[in-house]
């Protein structure tokens, strides 16, 4: 009996270890890459301004005081998150309008596509001139970059609601607002979350682009500053920091979905 339970525990442990290994595989792969990278740089004497060694990047990272990192991180996070939140506040009602009205869908959607295909980085300096040097242009740039996948995913999600549910709603005469609020929007949640996952990484990119154009703080600004002083390892350190932040935000969106909208994950699995 006890031998039996022990072997059961063993297999359970084994599967858990296996899944842990599988989950940490990407991280392990990245970690494994570091010594190879270091070795290649050392063997071929790759100049620092072309590809700095991981050790040089690490050194550059440590050389910057933690408060400075936090300051830049805070600035970028603020713009990325506030811009992202704003983008959600704009996109969801917009998606509802697009779903509800054939007319708006025909007139508004092409405009959205035009905005989306405009290289935001090209109009960013204009935005600064128009909106001044405060947070407004930075938030606008972040919003412009993130809103499209959100609108599209929310619209697609709401339109993918089974026709039967819409008929049920109409047979109950529940009204347009309840149709959106109680059926279409929740049904779009899985889609909206895939949009959010794309959106959050785009928000970071948006914040960085905005910082390239006008900023005195932020990781994007710091990257630009470092390259303008040819401090390539420092620029790389900032880039790594940036991608880790991006990854964390992405995970945060996933956790949010898992905790509050766990049901929406079942579909994919």
């Amino acid at each position: 009996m006890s031998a039996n339970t022990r072997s059961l525990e063993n297999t359970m442990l084994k599967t858990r270890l296996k899944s842990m290994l599988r989950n940490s595989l990407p991280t392990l792969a990245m970690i494994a890459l570091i010594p190879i990278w270091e070795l290649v740089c050392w063997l071929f004497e790759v100049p620092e301004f072309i590809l700095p060694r991981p050790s040089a990047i690490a050194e550059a990272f440590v050389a910057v005081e933690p408060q400075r990192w936090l300051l830049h991180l805070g600035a970028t996070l603020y713009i990325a998150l506030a811009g992202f939140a704003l983008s959600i506040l704009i996109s969801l009602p917009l998606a509802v309008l697009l779903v509800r009205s054939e007319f708006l869908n025909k007139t508004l959607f092409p405009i959205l596509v035009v905005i989306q295909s405009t290289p935001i980085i090209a109009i960013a300096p204009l935005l600064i001139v128009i909106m001044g040097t405060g947070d407004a242009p930075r938030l606008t740039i972040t919003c412009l970059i993130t809103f499209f996948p959100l609108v599209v995913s929310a619209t697609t999600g709401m339109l993918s609601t089974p026709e039967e549910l819409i008929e049920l709603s109409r047979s109950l005469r529940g009204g347009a607002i309840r149709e959106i609020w109680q059926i279409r929007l929740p049904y779009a949640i899985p889609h909206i979350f895939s949009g959010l996952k794309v959106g959050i990484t785009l928000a970071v990119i948006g914040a960085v682009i905005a910082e390239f154009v006008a900023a005195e703080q932020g990781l994007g600004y710091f990257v630009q500053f470092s390259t303008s002083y040819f401090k390539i390892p420092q620029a790389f350190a900032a880039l790594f920091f940036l991608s880790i932040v991006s990854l964390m935000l992405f995970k945060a969106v996933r956790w949010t979905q898992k905790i509050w909208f766990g049901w929406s994950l079942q579909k994919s699995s």
Partner: protein
Amino acid sequence: MKNYVEFIDVGHEYTLADGQRMRALSPINFNIQRHEFVSVVGPSGCGKSTLLRLLSGLIQPTEGEVRIFDKPVTEPQDEVGIVFQKPTLLPWKNVLDNVLFPLRHKFGRVLPADKQRASQLLEMAGLGSYQQHMPGELSGGMQQRVGIVRALLLSPDILILDEPFSALDALTREEMGFELLRICREQKKTVLFITHSISEAVLLSDRVVVLGGRPGELVDNIEIDLPGQRDNSTLQHPDFAAYTRTIRNYICAPHKTGEQEKTGESAKTDEPRKAVSPHKGAA
């Protein structure tokens, strides 16, 4: 004899996105009487779901008139509950909340008494211990049961079911059929049951309306006169086989024999054809 539902020369044409009109249903006549269980059978695309939409008031017929309780149907009615082919439960709500959904959707709120009633209905459908489960955790059959309970919540007199068991395996399907029958008898429902399974239609119904063709037209309207309570033994009854064969002949080879032309004529009247001795038909 009171007609709860009347289809009077009802035909329907859909208007397509490009403005073209597409006929889905040729004008037909038939009635459903009080507490009667009527099935509609016919091949795919003959307008069965269109019938459901017409009766539930989701669409207006382009010809004729649909009447419920002697009043024309001009908008969705409270007297009608609908069960769809797919359970279409809300994946973010548990079973109990799914059943309560029509109330929440119609009135925006749910009272404790409603919850009690929903629980009772679930209990009756054998789902008492699954109230807190999420739809994803239930089998297809159980999900469809929840769908039926949801349709019963607002206590409609008339229940329309559109191929409710077509996604289920054969065994579950039969079992669910009898279960539905029991519920409908208990709750005294008048039922329009849409299916493309002939045996299912014969097994459960008091009457079978056969649709055929594209656009759909009424091929026959057969009273099913099988003795006793419907259960597994009904399947063994010789008349059962005869009825199914008759209907299968309509559907598999329509408008071929003289007899079918005659039935086509009889279909134009709203008087259901009295059992044309299925024994003879079988012979």
